[in-house]
């Protein structure tokens, strides 16, 4: 028996364990932030735009997520994530502020560096929140301000990430995509876990990123998500593996697997044509499987994945832009750019939580 054979046997024997660990070793990401808000996600009340761009106070958690794949004039990548979270914290309501806390994440990856900033602020104090006419999200000096009254794009984004300053113009030339049933996205097979979820995957971004005093003119593409629910902060919600992919042929794919304690992992997604028509994919139509794990921040993180959609002849393998794209925040998670090849090529973003 040679060493190669032993190595293969070892991989075969370990790998199912690693796959199983995707679920068994997960811990709830937002478990400690559970509140008693129980506004439900109902198919009878689908997502309505532009009314739903703003915050929804009856829900436990809500986020506005922007991921951008940018390059400077020299072709150097600048992958940027900007996210605002809103958590319901009714016990904090006082004469000082309202019962909700905003959290902001700003994460910039270059080939050699990772700049990450996190901010917290209480709603009602004037430090973080949302205003209309024009649409404006803010936390401290981080601001997303649209140039039109009721909609999000075109907009300007000003933020910082450690020593990096980000000033970008964002445009979108295609409609918003509502996932699931008119924006009601199911996270488990029994439908107990769900969220309101819509995206804008056709974003063009350009502007300046100044890193440690050196300005870079950048441009690229991006993806925007807005999601709100009351279930994903449950102790039982163990996390998810999520992808937003930009195909070179202009198509877009959102795909995720959701893990719930005591339940089966649930995989679903939305395939979006280059013109903006969407197709919801069920668990039987879409498979997401880890291919390789790496030790990141003391955890085994699957950094390479296989995604297949047999009906669409899609069979791709994703690879992380960098192995370590760990956001060491209060709720730590993996968020970073990926590239993919196989039946199709392209690039996108991957988010792994609960590890």
């Amino acid at each position: 028996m040679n060493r190669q054979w032993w190595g293969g046997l070892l991989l075969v024997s370990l790998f199912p364990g690693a796959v199983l660990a995707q679920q068994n070793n997960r811990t709830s990401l937002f478990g400690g932030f559970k509140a008693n808000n129980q506004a439900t996600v109902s198919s009878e009340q689908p997502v309505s735009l532009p009314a739903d761009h703003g915050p929804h106070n009856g829900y436990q958690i809500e986020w506005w997520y922007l991921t951008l794949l940018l390059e400077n004039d020299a072709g150097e990548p600048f992958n940027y994530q900007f996210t605002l979270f809103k958590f319901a914290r009714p016990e904090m309501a006082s004469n000082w502020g309202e019962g909700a806390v905003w959290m902001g994440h700003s994460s910039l990856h270059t080939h050699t560096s990772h700049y990450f900033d996190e901010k917290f602020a209480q709603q009602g104090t004037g430090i973080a929140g949302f205003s209309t006419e024009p649409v404006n999200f803010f936390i401290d000096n981080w601001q997303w301000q649209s140039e039109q009254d009721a909609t999000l794009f075109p907009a300007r984004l000003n933020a910082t990430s450690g020593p990096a300053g980000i000033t970008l113009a964002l445009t979108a030339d295609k409609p918003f995509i509502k996932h699931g049933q008119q924006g009601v996205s199911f996270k488990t097979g029994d439908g107990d876990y769900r969220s309101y979820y819509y995206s804008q995957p056709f974003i063009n971004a350009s502007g300046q990123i100044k890193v440690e005093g050196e300005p870079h003119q950048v441009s690229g593409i991006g993806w925007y998500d807005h999601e709100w629910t009351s279930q994903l902060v449950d102790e039982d919600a163990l996390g998810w593996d999520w992808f937003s992919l930009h195909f070179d042929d202009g198509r877009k794919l959102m795909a995720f697997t959701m893990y719930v304690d005591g339940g089966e992992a649930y995989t679903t997604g939305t395939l979006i044509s280059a013109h903006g028509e969407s197709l919801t994919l069920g668990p039987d139509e879409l498979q997401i499987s880890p291919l390789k794990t790496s030790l990141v921040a003391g955890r085994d993180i699957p950094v390479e994945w296989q995604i297949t959609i047999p009906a669409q002849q899609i069979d791709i393998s994703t690879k992380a832009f960098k192995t370590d794209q760990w956001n060491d925040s209060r709720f730590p998670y993996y968020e970073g750019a990926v590239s993919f090849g196989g039946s199709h090529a392209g690039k996108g973003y991957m988010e792994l939580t609960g590890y």
Partner: protein
Amino acid sequence: MSRAMRVLILALRTQLATYRARFWEPLLIIVAIFIASAGLTAVTLINAGASSQLKQFTLGDVPVNFHIIPRNENKPLRRSDYAELRRQGVNALVAYTQTGDRLAVDTVTLFNLLPMANRAASQQNSFAQQAALNGIEDINQFYQGDVTLQTHQLSGLLVMGALSTEQYALLEESLPAHLQLAPFVLTSSANNLSDSFSLNLWAMGALMVLVSIFIVFNAFNLLLAARTPVLVKLRQLGVGQALLLRVLQLEMLILALVGAVGGVIAGASLVSAITPLLSNIYRFLLDGQFSGGQFSTPRLMLLAVVFCAIAVMVMGLLIRQRLAHSLARRSYLVAAFKRRFKPVYNVWLLLSLAIVALGAWLVASQREALLYIGLVLIAGCTTVVLLMPQLMSLVARRVSTTKPLLHWSMHNAVSLSQRTRLAACAFFIALAANIGMNVMVDSFRQATEQWLEQRLFAPFYIYTDFDGDLSAEEGTPVPLLARYGKDVRVNGQTLELRSFPDGAEYQQYLMLDNQLPSAWSAFHAQRGVFINQQLAYRQGLNTGDVVSLPLNTGLQAFEIVGVYPDYGNPKAQVLLPEALLCRDYALISAYAAFASPAEQAALESWLKARNESARLIPRETLIEQSMRLFSRTFLTTDTLNLITMLVAALSFFVSITLLVMDIKPQLLLLRSVGVSPFRIKLSLFSQYCFIAVSCALLALPFALLLAWLLVNKVNRFAFHWTYPLILDPMIIMQSLLIGLGLLLLLMALPLGRLQARFYSQQEAV
């Protein structure tokens, strides 16, 4: 030299020439100004020395050196200012509000600024819980119910982290006009104590100045009375009244300069001399630091000039008022004039006494308590001025006319009491303050002694820096009981957690102010804790309330089952069962050693083998050392008290001298009808005694009220502990007799001088 100048110099020389015959008046003025400026200099320097050594404040291990505060109260700091600054990118700011010892901060934004290690301490905890673990109160807990941003404005914005000069300048530039950047000093716990001590010192200084003003006023009256013949002659020689006024003002300036400069130098020397003592007081009693001996000469001279200017201003006003009267006739209040208004005075008197009686219950802060003490003294002085002659008159009326000398003496005493009202007020203030302080200190001493006797239950105590638990060592020659401790921060305040032995036999050694019926069972079951008065008063806690303590298992809630006195401890403290704290302690403050005297040597050698610096102290020695420290602590106040009393007695002495001059014709008349000089002196002395004793008797109830205020209000709000007021008749009598003794001793001096005058007058006749 011009004629005017020559006249001025001549007039001044004429005035100064009177010093050869009458040196008491100018000397007393110098002494009074000297004492006032020495007292104020000492107080200023002590407070400056104390505030120069403030500790750096940190929040979640991040230093906080500056804060942003409003420039004035008219335009307060608003939440919108906070938001606007943060939205401009000034993100290292955390809003806070402070009321008393409660420091509440915006923990949500604070969380951004803490090191990552502190942030990730517990993902599962809420912001408020995490804040509590870091010893901070969440601002949301503060602004609840009726407490709003309108009723309690933001105190400021903490600037987190060290600032470079450039950052400081940038931050200052970004501030709106109504806000400013200022050094941040946390006014809680130890700093509060220092502030309280400072405030008490200022109050004492003010008392000394008040008494000094009385003495200056009296001495000046005396001086003018003695100078009147000279002034009249100068007027007759053609010297104008305006020039005489200038001459007197110049003379006062010289006297004030001598007194003020001397006083400032003496005050500085006093502080320099007692610096080691003050260092001990600040270290042991106030948990702070004192740096003495750093006096700036220009600053001291500036002080002298300020004191001098104040003294001259006061005397200048008096000169202007008095000079015209002095040159015309002696001006005293006529008794008949007073009698006409007696009902009005009595209404005033009753009103002020009613204020005194009612006000005590309304006092709710240290500042109010000190102001109230001032009010009590004013009410007391009013009583002395208005009631004392009436009461004395009641006594005098009972003296039969068949004893003419006694009858005259008593009635003359009533008349004299009206003329000596200023001196009587000074004496009243000094005596009331002295008795009040003595009763307070004595009550404190007795309470401390009793507390120490009860609390120290073991025959020996061990103090060591041994890194480990000696009580857990094998082969200890005698049983050892460790006092485990851990200092934590709760609601922005340092809290001492200390263990108390678990056995039921130790229960008798914990003196408790109040306790729940099930206190000890809850304590032993690790559900209940005892808290000291300092914690109870500072945070308004009582038995039955719940306190959350950060232990190694996280925040743990305990019911408060009892409150205990903890004299001399500036910090808030919680007693936990030994079984609980021995698993989670950071220090062992001491060991109780149950050794007999025969076992002492063996225990000492065992200790030396483990730790060279270990000290084994017998219980009695510990009590003696504590009481010695106690006495040294009150040495400062005792000294200031005695000085005040001396000043008051001097004031009285000055008045008596003046009166002796006034009644000289009457005394000569008595002498001419055959009354012997001895009987005249005896009569005069009995009159002074009558006035002094009447004043002292009136001072007594006010003194007891002062003692009650000092114990239950000033002490309560300054140090956050109280003790029972013990009225020991011996202490009260002792204070009374010392005051009266000092006074009567000084009064004997003018009587001695009187004899010489009689003989000289008789010779002249």
